[in-house]
């Protein structure tokens, strides 16, 4: 689940509706550069990528995790991109299930060796309230015991409601709560862009 919209709405209907006042804050090139930088930071912080597992949070965290894995493998040829990536659905761990229409549950797939003793890097598109990440931490603790958990987000838009911060950020984007941040990705939406919509800008 993405937290791109206020109250972390389901993002799948995002691409078709793009009001006129949408501002493009990141294009395809910038997204690619940001991911390259994050990939290097992950390797630097963890002294290589041998224990790293990238867990993407559906919907848009998963393609981002796959792209990061490909970049990690490009830097460190000993790594296999496919073995680094997993998907972590947090729907059943959310604290707001009772306040929204029923959410569709995504799939959770872990790479071969599981999570025990690994460094898990959670990957999501937008970091907003922090509640999705809180749910993800609960989900991880039911799946294994990683040595450490780190967080990578393409966009950090502020307005945290929990004491959570990202270790790797593509772009810090100061926003007002009235605005919406939308991440579009080639894999899910046909093109790469980060948009801000609404609000007085």
């Amino acid at each position, binding site marked *: 689940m993405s937290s791109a*919209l*206020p*109250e972390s*709405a*389901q993002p*799948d*209907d995002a691409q078709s509706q793009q009001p006129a006042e949408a501002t493009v804050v990141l294009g395809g090139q910038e997204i690619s550069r940001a991911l390259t930088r994050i990939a290097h930071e992950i390797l630097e912080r963890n002294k290589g990528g041998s224990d790293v597992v990238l867990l993407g949070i559906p919907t848009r965290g998963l393609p981002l995790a796959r792209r990061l894995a490909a970049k990690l493998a490009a830097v460190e040829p000993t790594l296999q991109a496919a073995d680094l990536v997993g998907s972590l*659905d947090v729907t*059943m*761990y959310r604290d707001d*299930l*009772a*306040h*929204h*229409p*029923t*959410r*569709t*549950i*995504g*799939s*959770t797939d872990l790479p071969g060796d599981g999570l025990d003793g690994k460094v898990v890097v959670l990957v999501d598109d937008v970091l907003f309230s922090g509640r999705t990440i809180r749910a993800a931490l*609960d989900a991880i603790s*039911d*799946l294994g015991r990683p040595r450490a958990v780190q967080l990578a987000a393409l966009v950090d838009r502020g307005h945290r409601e929990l004491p959570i911060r990202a270790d790797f950020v593509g772009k810090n984007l100061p926003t007002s709560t009235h605005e919406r941040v939308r991440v579009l990705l080639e894999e899910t939406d046909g093109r790469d862009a980060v948009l801000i919509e609404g609000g007085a800008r």
Partner: protein
Amino acid sequence: MKHLLSAADLSHKQAVRILDTAGQMAATQAREIKKLPTLRGRTVVNLFFEDSTRTRISFETAAKRLSADVINFSAKGSSVSKGESLKDTALTLQAMGADAVVIRHHASGAPHTLAHSGWTHGAVVNAGDGMHQHPTQALLDAYTLRRHLTGAGDPSGRDLAGLRVAIVGDVLHSRVARSNVQLLHTLGADVTLVAPPTLVPVGVEAWPAEVSYDLDAAIDTKPDAIMMLRVQRERMSSAGGGFFPSPLEYTRNYGLDARRLAAMPEHAIVLHPGPMNRGLEISAEAADSPRAVIVEQVANGVAVRMAVLYLLLSGSGATTETNETKVDA
């Protein structure tokens, strides 16, 4: 979807969604820690007026795996045996704050009454009412069929289009058969009912299914799956209740034995909703063969019931139909 009362109420989209959700639930049940916090603080009441082993245990397991509180109520040993009515029982449960009531009742329509009377505000799940409906059984059968017969890979999103299923035995008394005919039809499968003429219900020509009186002929048409129904002797007055001359003759004509099993196509699977009358409608060879998925049906039942409870109980209730909704709360 506020309640789950009948397989006929489910649209194609809703049915596929339940099966997809069940697939995700099943994946969580392969983990070391099977419990999910999803329905924490919710209360599920199992209201069983009729004997049941697997359905009640299955619902109880499903609710507990989702962290709901479970209250089991069986008519035996309760105030029902002192003459308390369904209404008063329901009002008692309402006063205790039940979010969902899973009801099995010997009277057809009891879950419908409970859901529409205003006696309880919770979601009502039909766990079998008389000779009427048993929707979660049909869902778990459909889930099992989809897993085995729709090809390799992740079956999410698929329906049962083109599959041919024979439902054999005591169709007259079977709520499982009624629910399955409706749900399998909704999902695009072709259903053939096979039963002695005495055990075919009146009005069957209105059902979306073929009717055959000859099991061997039905097997010759190469069905993808065969679902054996239990001969419900408790609903018949004497040994065969006048529905068939003798158990032996029933077995000869309508029992699944090794010979008929061998005549079935290579890929075909055998289902049975349980409990089995071994030696009556199904022989031990057939029941224990690797093509019988009867034990797997029980495991799938937990996943399907978790999915149903999740879809009924999580969410604000109003718009459970909307799949991917934007929320601007």
